[in-house]
């Protein structure tokens, strides 16, 4: 306490005290010393933020304005400027490249909406069902979380084997055993690839929703349920009027995170389909990868990435604005 008072005591101007001789090495004006120190301490973090996030992003934007092919990768800064050329090609939906990007974008949107919805539904349903104590609850929880704990490559490649046309487990069960389909279906090529991708993605990500909702449920006081039961509320009313409103803030973050992960997912489609995915499973991140790395056109790939970044930023901002405003009004 006394030191604090003491520290603020000396007036502005040259410091007369002899004990401060050491400080001459770094002569800092008092104003900075008092007001600026917090900012000074933040500076390293700011610099790292620049290195890790801002500079690569700016470089990406710069590259997107250049005609960056293999001719220039040794001195990419010398690649010729194309201005908006790469963007024009990317958004021109009447030309093949823009058309393919748009198709891939639409597939990704449909896929993301379905995958996030199903993940959330399964996660919430499982968490609500397991809210009460029963024998074997711990074991079940552990089993539910396994897909999330498995290494991605290993689990997705197993799915790829199961989806095989000739020897896969899925066709064996659906066609050979149950006779649901009249002939074995293709799951890794053609239109069905959308559903196989959806199944694998939901299987991988729903445990995360389950985990988050389960944590959220711990914070709802049991008394609320007991009181509502006395008032005659059924199970659906309890879920609708107690559980879901209490989970609101968790859901807000959960849905956003799931949305960003699913939309950006590269590894799942890449492992499942390889570098040239069928049209129905052509997610945008793999599409951009083949448009830039595989075909050595890094400028075009950067332009597509920037467009994707803009789209995700707009969606995220709109989502946060809408959901937060709704909550404020209720509060």
């Amino acid at each position, binding site marked *: 306490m006394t030191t604090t008072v003491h520290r603020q005591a000396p007036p502005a101007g040259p410091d007369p005290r002899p004990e401060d001789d050491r400080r001459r090495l770094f002569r800092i004006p008092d104003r900075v*010393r008092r007001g600026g120190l917090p900012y000074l301490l933040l*500076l*390293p973090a700011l610099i790292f933020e620049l*290195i890790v996030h801002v500079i690569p992003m700016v470089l990406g934007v710069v590259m997107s304005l250049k005609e960056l092919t293999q001719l220039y990768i040794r001195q990419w800064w010398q690649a010729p400027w194309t201005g908006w050329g790469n963007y024009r*090609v990317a958004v021109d939906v009447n030309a093949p490249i823009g058309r393919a990007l748009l198709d891939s974008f639409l597939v990704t949107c449909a896929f993301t909406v379905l995958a996030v919805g199903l993940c959330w539904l399964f996660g919430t349903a499982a968490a609500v069902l397991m809210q009460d104590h029963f024998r074997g609850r711990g074991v079940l929880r552990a089993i539910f979380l396994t897909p999330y704990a498995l290494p991605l490559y290993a689990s997705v490649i197993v799915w790829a084997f199961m989806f*095989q046309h000739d020897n896969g487990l899925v066709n064996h069960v659906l066609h050979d055993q149950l006779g649901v389909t009249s002939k074995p279906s*293709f799951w890794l090529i053609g239109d069905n690839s959308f559903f196989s991708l959806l199944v694998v993605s939901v299987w991988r990500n729903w445990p995360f929703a389950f985990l988050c909702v389960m944590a959220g449920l711990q914070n709802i006081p049991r008394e609320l349920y007991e009181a509502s039961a006395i008032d005659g509320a059924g199970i659906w009313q309890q879920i609708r009027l107690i559980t879901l409103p209490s989970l609101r803030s968790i859901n807000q973050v959960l849905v956003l995170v799931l949305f960003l992960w699913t939309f950006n997912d590269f590894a799942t489609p890449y492992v499942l389909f390889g*570098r040239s995915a069928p049209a129905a499973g052509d997610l945008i991140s793999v599409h951009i990868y083949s448009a830039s790395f595989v075909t050595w056109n890094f400028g075009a790939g950067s332009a597509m990435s920037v467009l994707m970044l803009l789209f995700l930023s707009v969606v995220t901002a709109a989502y946060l604005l809408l959901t937060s405003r709704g909550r404020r009004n209720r509060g």
Partner: protein
Amino acid sequence: MSVRVRTAIGAVFGATLLAALPGCGGGTSTGGGGDGHPKTLTYWASNQGASLEDDKAKLTPELQAFEKQTGIKVKLEVVPWTDLLNRILGAASSGQGPDVLNIGNTWSASLQTTGALLPFDDKNFAKVGGRDRFQDSALASTGAPGKAPTAVPLYSLAYGLYYNKKLFADAGITKPPATWDELVQDGKRLTGGGHYGLAVEGGNVSENIHHAFVFAKQHGADFFDAAGKPTFTSQGAVDGVKQYVDFIARDKIAAPGNAEYAQNESVADFANGKAAMLLWQAAGANLQKHGMKPDQYGVAPVPVQSGTPGPGNNIDTMVAGINIAVFKNSGNLDGALKFVQFMTGDAEQKKLNGEYGSIPPVKTASQDPAFNTPELTVLRNAIATSAAPLPQVPKESQFEELVGGAVKDLLADAAAGRPVTTQSVQARLAKAQQQMQ
């Protein structure tokens, strides 16, 4: 207080230094090569053996022999195929890379335009023993025609027709087909009861492009004209692609499920007797790994439209293989060239090609009796007389991706029972051509 301030300033200073470091770190070795480290070399080898470990075991004794000869220690890294091109592009853009590296020979022209690899002009070629030591067809896939090669041939491969002797005998077929008509006829006799005449790797973009290239050639078409402009929709290219897709679509001699094969399932199918024929490059070692004995399969030249394999329209294989290149920014150019000379010397060529089941692109080494097995004789003759390199154009990898992908889609259509017509093939190839920027 003052201590805290000083710590803060120290931290800021340190962070600034760190931030500045990556910027100037590249300067040390981007200076255009020289002799920065005369006693060491870094070598990126491609994955030729059964596994990365297998490659290491095969190459390490050779690298030790090289060290004994020259006193230069070689640091080996075996890079899997899925990473190799990305790694090379990363090395090219950063200027930080290996001294010597393997490249797939179809990348030669594309990598040539990056300027990251040392051109083998007459002077450099002389240092590794001269251009005359190598097969012409192998040299043709080391870069764009008329320019100094960007690499030197290391291992050569070609396609052959592998056939199951027992299934052929059971069906009463006495000799392997020499033309595609015969192959389709034989294939129909061999198809039935869950067995198929032919196995194709339809989900693999690279395999598709290799076959599409040969079929187009046999119809007198090239995918690029002399000026390097894409000509994917020429009549010959369309007919060629259709002929390949028809194995599943019209002839039905390959199982529809082949359309999604991308993990070498077709090799396994052939080895297990599910398919009686397979078009593959040096499949021997792979087949034996699946339990097929060398006397159970025969190897014949890949069929042609009519006559016998040869130049022109009777090309029956691409020049497949691996080239060895020197990174222009190497800190030990002399040592790197010595290493290339060592690897392409007769002794190493015989030894390494023998172990990998490939053919030496070096003429003298390929005459060695070790390469006189029935399988390798067929492949060696193909390389010498009826092989052509894939288009040596800067946009080769884009072509491979787009046309290979188009063929994959067409095979998927065929597998799903949708009709594949000349028009649909043409439309799909036209789309691929439009996507070439």
